[in-house]
C-alpha cells in the first residue's frame, strides 16, 4: 500500500494548475479531497507521476443559492453540504444523499468535485447530479465550458472531461417538489448495492415532472428518462411505479460482485426505487 514515486504540486491559482496539466498531459492528475485517487495510487492501480493538489487554488469552496440555481464549488466537502442550512432548504436531497456517503471522517475531506469528476460508478453524487439535471463547469486551455451531468459519464472512470481540463463547479437548477435519495449498502463506508435519486413535482394530484437516476448499477450512473416519464401524468400510483421500475430495469446493467449476483441487484434496485418514489411522492 505504498504508491509509486510522484511529483507533488500545490499551485495557488488555476493558471498554475493548467500549465502543469498542459506540460504533463495524462501523466498529471488533479486532486481535491483525494479519497478516491489516493487509495488507487496506494494500490498502484493509478499511476500518477505528477499530482496536483488543488487545496491552495482557492475560489472553489463556495455554495451559492441563487434565484434559479445553486452553484457548488468543486472543493466543497460533503460535510459542507450537510452543514449548509440554506442549501438544505433549497435542495434537501443533497443533504439526504451526502449523509449516506461514507462516514464523517471521509465527509470532512471528500469533495463534491472529486466525487463527480472521478467517474467512479460507485460514487453517489454523479447519479444525484443527473437526477437534478446539474451541469459541470470545466476549465481548460481553451477556456471554460459547461457539460451536462447527464452527458458527462462515458464509462467507468471515463468522462467528458479532457486530460488538460479541471472540473471547477457544479450548477444545479433549483429543484422543486418531493425528493428522496434511497441507498442500500452492506455497511458504513460501502458503495451502494443499489441507490436511487428521485425528484417528483405534482400538481393537483398528478405528476407533472419526475426525474430518476440510479447509482452503482452500471459502469456509469444511470439517468433513466423512461422511468421518470412513466410517472408523468399519473397519480404516482402502484401501476405507475411498476412501470417506472420496469423502465429503470431496462436501463441499468449491473454486474456480479461481492454484494451479490445480477438477479439480486436488479431486484433490490426495483425495491429501492419503489421506496424512493414513495418517499418523494409523500414529500411532493
Amino acid at each position, binding site marked *: *500500500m*505504498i504508491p509509486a514515486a510522484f511529483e507533488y504540486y500545490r499551485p495557488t491559482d488555476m493558471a498554475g494548475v493548467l500549465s502543469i496539466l498542459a506540460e504533463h498531459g495524462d501523466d498529471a492528475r488533479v486532486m481535491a479531497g483525494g479519497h478516491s485517487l489516493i487509495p488507487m495510487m496506494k494500490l*498502484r492501480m493509478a499511476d500518477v507521476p505528477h499530482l496536483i493538489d488543488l487545496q491552495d487554488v482557492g475560489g472553489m469552496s463556495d455554495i451559492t443559492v441563487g434565484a434559479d440555481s445553486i452553484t457548488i464549488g468543486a472543493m466543497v466537502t460533503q460535510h459542507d453540504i450537510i452543514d449548509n442550512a440554506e442549501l438544505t432548504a433549497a435542495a434537501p436531497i443533497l443533504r439526504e444523499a451526502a449523509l449516506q456517503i461514507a462516514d464523517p471522517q471521509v465527509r470532512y475531506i471528500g469533495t463534491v468535485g472529486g466525487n463527480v469528476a472521478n467517474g467512479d460508478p460507485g460514487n453517489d453524487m454523479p447519479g444525484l447530479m443527473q437526477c437534478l439535471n446539474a451541469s459541470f463547469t470545466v476549465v481548460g486551455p481553451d477556456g471554460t465550458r459547461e457539460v451536462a451531468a447527464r452527458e458527462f459519464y462515458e464509462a467507468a472512470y471515463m468522462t467528458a472531461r479532457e486530460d488538460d481540463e479541471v472540473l471547477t463547479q457544479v450548477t444545479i437548477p433549483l429543484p422543486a417538489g418531493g425528493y428522496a435519495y434511497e441507498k442500500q449498502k*452492506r*455497511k458504513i463506508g460501502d458503495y451502494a448495492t443499489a441507490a436511487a435519486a428521485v425528484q417528483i413535482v405534482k400538481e393537483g394530484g398528478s405528476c407533472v415532472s419526475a426525474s430518476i437516476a440510479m447509482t452503482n448499477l452500471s459502469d456509469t450512473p444511470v439517468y433513466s428518462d423512461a422511468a421518470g416519464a412513466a410517472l408523468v401524468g399519473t397519480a404516482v400510483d402502484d401501476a405507475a411505479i411498476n412501470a417506472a421500475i420496469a423502465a429503470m430495469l431496462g436501463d441499468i446493467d449491473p454486474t456480479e460482485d461481492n*454484494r*451479490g*449476483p445480477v438477479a439480486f441487484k436488479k431486484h*433490490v434496485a426495483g*425495491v429501492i426505487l419503489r421506496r424512493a418514489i414513495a418517499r418523494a411522492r409523500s414529500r411532493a
Partner: protein
Amino acid sequence: MKDEITREERVDNLKGMGCSRKRVEDARFTQGKGNYVDDLKLDGMLFGDFVRSPYAHARIKNIDTAAALEVPGVLAVLTAKDLEPLGLHWMPTLAGDKQMVLADGKVLFQGQEVAFVVAEDRYAAADGIELVEVEYEELPVIVNPFEALQSDVVLREDLVAEDGSIPDGAHGPRKHPNHIFTWDAGDKAPTEEVIASAEVVAEETMYYHRTHPCPLETCGCVASMDKVNGKLTLWGTFQAPHAIRTVVSLISGIEEHNIRVISPDIGGGFGNKVGAYPGYVCSVVASIVTGKPVKWIEDRMDNLMTTAFARDYHMTGKIAATPEGKITGLHCHVTADHGGFDACADPTKFPAGFMNICTGSYDIPTAYLEVDGVYTNKAPGGVSYRCSFRVTEAVYFIERMIEVLAIKLDMDAAELRRINFIKKEQFPYTAALGWEYDSGDYHTAWDKALKAVDYEGLRAEQAQRVADFKAGKTRKLMGIGLSFFTEIVGAGPVKNCDILGLGMFDSCEIRIHPTGSAIARLGTISQGQGHATTFAQILASEIGLPADSITIEEGDTDTAPYGLGTYGSRSTPVAGAATAMAGRKIRAKAQMIAAYLLEVHDNDVEFDVDRFVVKGAPEKFKTMKEIAFAAYNQAIPGIEPGLEAVSYYDPPNMTYPFGAYVCVMDIDVDTGVPDIRRFYALDDCGTRINPMIIEGQVHGGLTEALAVALGQEIAYDDMGNCKTGTLMDFFLPTAWEVPNYETDYTVTPSPHHPIGAKGVGESPHVGGVPCFSNAVQDAFRPFGNTHTNMPHDHWRIWKTANDLGLHD
C-alpha cells in the same frame, strides 16, 4: 493502633476482585501514547517487504532480482536460495507441518511470500518489489477440499515419497496426497448403532465459512542482531513471546539466552498473532545479513490474504432423539480446509482443536466426531479467532443441530434445549467425547434469559408477524435467535496440552517493594484484554496491597517468567491462577513476618483484607505495607530478607464458561437487510474479576460474532484469487452496524481454579455466532427453512427468501 477507616473502606481501597476498576492501560491508549511495534524506530533501521505470488498454484521457473537491486535504497533481495544454506527456507508450523518461508520452487496460495526486499525505507522496498521479475508456470488450482481429495493434482510434492507412496503426517496416516490427517474422538460403532435404531434422526450439512480475525493492528516485527554481543532482539506482535523465543532458537540455532523477544503494546490479536510467519524469519535473517535492525509490517491486504485465517469447516451432522426430544446420539464429520500448509494453531495432540466439545451443553450419551484435514490452494492458518481451539465451530455445529432437530420434532427450540441440558447435579460431568466439565448451572441461566426477554411474548409476536406477512400486511419477518453455549478454555493441563512440545502452563513472578508496592510479571501478553488492570486486582485481593500500587508487566522474555502467552481465553484460567498462587506464597511468608512482629505464633494471626490480625484481637495487627517494610529491613530470625514469589501453574483441568443468548431480529424480505432489534447476553464466567472489563469483552466478542454471522468472510474464486482482501469487502462492523447489547450474568465458580474464575474474552463470540445465525434462520422457519449457510449477508438472506418463494 486505632483504625481510621472502616473495613468496607479498606476493601474499597484495594480495588480488588469484583471492582469495576477503570482500565489503567487506557490513559495511554486514549491519548495516542501507546507503543506499538510500528512505533519503534532504531538507528539505521531497514525495512523489509515481500514480493507475493499473484497465483494460487504455480511453479516458479526463475526469479530475477537485478532490476530491483538497482532501485536506490534497495540493499538486498532474499529468495529461498539465499535461505537454503541456513536451513531457513522452510520453517516448522505449530501443527507439525512445515511451511515455506520463501517460495521454494512453487507457490501454493495467492499472496504467498516469494522474495523479501530489504531497503532503507518502505518506499524503496515497495519500488523494489515492483521490479523483481518472477517467472511463473501456472498449475491447476484447487480451492475445494472435497475436490482436493479426489484430484490427481498433488499440492505438496514434498509430502509424497519418490515411489508415490504417502508417508504418515504429524497426526498419523494420510489417505491421499492432499490429505493431512484423520482425527477422531468418541465411539464410532455405538454412535452409528444409536443413530440407525433411533426413532428420530435429523441430519444437516453446513459450511462454516473461512474468515479472518482482522485485528486493527496487522502483524509485524523488528529484528535487531547485535553482532558485537551476539544477541538477537525481536520486537513483534506476538501473542506468545516465550514460545516465539524458543521456536526462533530451535530453528536458527541461536542459543535461547541470546534471544530477547519483546511484545510491545498489541492492537488486538484474536488468534491472528499466535503463529510464526515468514516475515519474522526473513526479518531476523535480514538483520543478521546486514547487521542492522530490520522492520517488517504487514499492510491490510497482506494481513487478510496471508496470515492466519479462521474456520473453513465443512460439517455434516446426525443427531438422534426420542420422539419426546431426548437426544440419544450425535455424529459429526468435518472436512477441514487448511490451505497450502497446515499451520493451525492447536495443542499438538488436538489437530482439530477442541472440536470434540461439540456435544455442547447437552447430556448426550453417545457421540462420535471425525475430522479430515485437507490441503488446498488457499492461505494457511486455521487459528481460533476469538475462541478457544475450534470451539466456535463446535458450538455453531451443535447449536444448529439442536435447531434442526427442533424443526424435525416440530418442537420449540428453547424447550428442546431445556430437556437436554446437563443438570447441575451432574457436574463434574464427563461428556461422551471425553471432556470433564468442571461446573455449570444451565437451567438457571436459561430460565433467567428467557424470562428477561419475555420469550413467550416474543413467540406470540412472531406468530402474529407471520400471520400479517401471509396476509400481505408486512414485508418484514421476525427471527428469534437462541443459543446456549459451553466454552472450553484455559489450555491447559500439561498432561494433554502442549504446542510443539511446550507445556501449556503459565506463570507469575511477584516482587513486593519495601514501601508496600509491587511489580508482577506474567508469561501472558495483553492485546487489549486489560491484564494490567485485572491481574493487579487479583493480586490486590490476595496480598492486601492496593491494585493501584501494583505494576503488571508482560511481554519481555528477558524479564517475564516463561509462559505460553495469551489466546484461547487462557490468561485468567492459567496465568490468573498462577497470580493467585504466587500471591498466596507472598501471603504465607507475610504471615510468618506478621506473627514475629506481633509476637505471637504463626497460627495465631489471620489475614483480613489488607493486614494480618491476631485472632480474637483485631486491634492487634500489622498491615501488608508494614510487613513489606519489615521483610526487607528487619532482621527476622529464620526468615530470609525480601518478599518475592514465583508460581508456575499447571491447571488440573480446563474451565468451562457458559452462557445463554437471545437475539431478536427483523428481516426485510425484499432487500435481505436484517435489523437487530434486541440482543440479550447472559454470561457465566465463574468468579467475576472486573465487571466493567467483562462487559467490554462481551460487547467486543458479540460484535465480532455479528461480523462473522452477517457478512465477514474470506472468499476465493475458482482460480484461487482472494476476493475479500480489503475492508471494502471484508466486513468489519462499525458502531453503526452494532446493536445495543443487554448483558447479564450468573456466577458458577470453577471448583478447581484458585479464585473460581473461568475466562470470558471469547465466550460472547462462541455463543454469539450461532445466536445471530439462528435468528436469521428462525425468521424463515415458518416458511420451511431448515438451514442456510453463513455469512448471512444481504444477498444470501434475500436468496433464502427467494428460494422459499417469498418474492412471488
